[in-house]
C-alpha cells in the first residue's frame, strides 16, 4: 500500500515552525507524508464586500482546482475570516471524500475573544481544525464521541473541549482510507 500524502498550502502568514508542528501531529494521525508550502495568491477576488469576509465556497473550489495537479489531499490554510452564503462564519470546510479542504485561523486566537495571547492554545486549535477538515476529505462525518476531533464545533470553546486526535472508530476509518 502506498502511503497517504497531505499537502498544506499556506495562504496566510503562518511561519514554518508552526506549520511543522501542525504537520508532525497531522502526519502521524493520518499516517501520511505531510508537506507544506507558501502560496502567494491575491485573495481580493474572494472578498465579499457586503459581508466583509471571504467566500468559503469559492476558496474551496479554488484550492480544489490547484489540487488537480497534486497527489493526495490538500488543505488551504487562511488567516482571513471565511463565510459561506448561508452561515455567518465557518472555521473551515471540505469536500466529503474529496481532495480538498480549507481552514481559517481567523477565529482561533485568544486575542479575538479578549483573552491573553496563548500560542499553545492557538496551535492546538489549529491542529484540531486541520485534522478535522482533512478527516472529512478521507470520508469521515461528524462524530458524537466526546473528545474526538471529528465532533462538530460551532464555538471556539467546543474546539477546546475536543482533543487533537480521532476516537478509536474514526482512527480506524482514517487509517484504512486511501488517497483516492
Amino acid at each position, binding site marked *: 500500500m502506498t502511503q497517504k500524502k497531505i499537502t498544506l498550502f499556506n495562504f496566510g502568514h503562518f511561519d514554518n515552525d508552526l506549520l511543522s508542528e501542525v504537520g508532525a501531529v497531522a502526519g502521524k494521525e493520518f499516517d501520511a507524508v505531510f508537506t507544506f508550502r507558501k502560496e502567494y495568491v491575491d485573495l481580493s477576488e474572494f472578498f465579499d464586500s457586503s459581508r466583509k469576509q471571504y467566500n468559503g465556497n469559492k476558496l474551496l473550489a479554488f484550492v480544489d482546482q490547484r489540487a488537480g495537479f497534486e497527489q493526495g489531499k490538500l488543505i488551504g490554510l487562511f488567516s482571513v475570516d471565511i463565510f459561506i452564503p448561508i452561515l455567518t462564519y465557518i472555521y473551515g470546510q471540505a469536500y466529503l471524500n474529496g481532495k480538498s479542504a480549507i481552514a481559517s485561523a481567523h477565529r482561533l486566537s485568544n486575542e479575538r475573544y479578549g483573552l491573553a495571547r496563548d500560542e499553545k492554545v492557538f496551535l492546538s486549535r489549529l491542529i484540531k481544525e486541520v485534522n478535522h477538515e482533512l478527516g472529512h476529505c478521507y470520508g469521515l462525518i461528524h462524530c458524537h464521541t*466526546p473528545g474526538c476531533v471529528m465532533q462538530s464545533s460551532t464555538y471556539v470553546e467546543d474546539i477546546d473541549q475536543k482533543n487533537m486526535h480521532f476516537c478509536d472508530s474514526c482512527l480506524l476509518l482514517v*487509517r484504512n482510507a486511501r488517497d483516492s
Partner: protein
Amino acid sequence: MNKKISLLIVDDEESVRDSLYNWFIEDGFAAGCAESAGAALSMLENNHFDIILTDIKMPGMDGLELLKRIKTIRKETIVIIMTAFATVDTAVQALKDGAFDYVTKPFDPDDLSHLIRNASRQIMLSQENEQLRQHLSLEHVEDIIGNSETIREVLHEVQQVAASNASVIITGESGTGKELFAKAIHANSPRRYFPLVSVHCGALSESLLESELFGHEKGAFTGAVYNRKGRFEMADNGTIFLDEIATISMKMQIELLRVLETKNFIRVGGNKLISSDFRVICATNRDLKQLVEEGRFREDLYYRLNVVNIRIPPLRNRMEDIPELVQHFIKKYCLAMSRNLVGIEAAALLKLQEYDYPGNVRELENMIERAIVVGNGKEIRVKDLPLQKEIATISSESLEDLEKKHVLSILNKYDWNISRAAKALQVDRVTLYNKIKKYDLKQG
C-alpha cells in the same frame, strides 16, 4: 429503520444549496437539493424526506405555497422556512400553516445546529411511539460477535429494551464487552440521532468525575481556564453510559440520584441551572445488590438505575463463539496495522479453545493483537500465543538498547496489553507496533 435523517434543501440560489448540502452531509445527514418548489414536489413523489428546508422567495411557486402542499401530502414532514428579509406577517403566516420554524439568512452556525437538533428531536419523539408498537430487528450490532444460544438470548433482551426509555444496568465480568451492548441499545433506540456519551467512572477521582459529568465554569478550580460542558450536557437527547458505576463515591451517588430525578444540574463553580434529557445505561462487574446490602451503594439509586438488568455471559460459557471471535480480531488488527490478513494454525486455534479466559473477550482480543504483532505475518502459530516464554537478553548500553529494554519492560509490566503499554510510553499503538517489530520483541 433509517439511521440517517433525510433532508431536502429548496432554494433557487445555487450557492445556498451547495453550502447547506455540504454542511449537512458533513454532519451525517442524507441530503437532497431542489432549485424550485416544483422540483421539490416532484422529488417528493418518489422520495421520503424527514425535513424540508425551503427559501420563501423563489420564481414560480413560493415557499409558503410549497409548505401548504407538503403538509397536505404528509402532515408530519418538518418544514423550515428560510428568508433573507424576515417580516412579522410572513413569519406568523408560515407558523400558522404548520412550519416548524422560520429563520433569517444568514444564520450563526450554532443557530443552525440548534434548529436541526430541535427538528431531529421532533422526529425522535414521533418515532418513539411507532417503534414501541413495532417489532424491529436489531441493527448496528456487527461488533457483537458470536451466534451461540447465550449471546442470542442477550441480543433478544437488548432488542426488547432498546425502544423504551428505561434505565438499564449491564452486568458481567470485566472484559465481556459491556460497552458494546450499551452501544447496541443506543443505536437501536429512538435516541440514535443523538450522542451516546460514555464515562468510565472507575478511572476518575471524585472531583474529576464531578467536573467531567457536570462540566465546570471558568475559574472553578486551578486549571479551569475555560468553561467546559459536562457529559450530562453532551448527552442531551441521547444516552449516557456510566461504566464501573459501583466505584463512585457516596457523595457522587447522591448527586447522581439528584440529576436522575430532576434532569437538572449546575456546572461546578457555576450558578445556572442546566437541563438535559438523557437516558442512562450503567455497567458494573460487581454485585450491586450485595453492595446495597453492605451499605456501600445507595438503595434508592440502585432501584432508579436497575429498571432492566442485562447479564453478559463470560466467554467460557460460550466457547463455541471462539473461532468467529478469532477471525473478527484478526481482521480488525491486520487492518489497523495495515498488514495482509493472516491465518491461524489448527493447533493454535485448538489451544485457544482450551483456555478458560478469566479476562474474557478482551483477553482473547489482546492475545490476537499480540500474536499478529510478534508473528510471521502469514499465520498465527502456537508459539505466538502467550503460552511460551522466551527470555530476552540485552547486554550493551546504546540508546537503542536502552529503548529496547525499556519498551520490553513496559510491555511486560502491562502483560503485553498493547494499548495500556502504548499509553504508558506515551506513544500511539502504531509506533509501538513498529518498535516491537524493529527490536523483534517477544513476551518473556
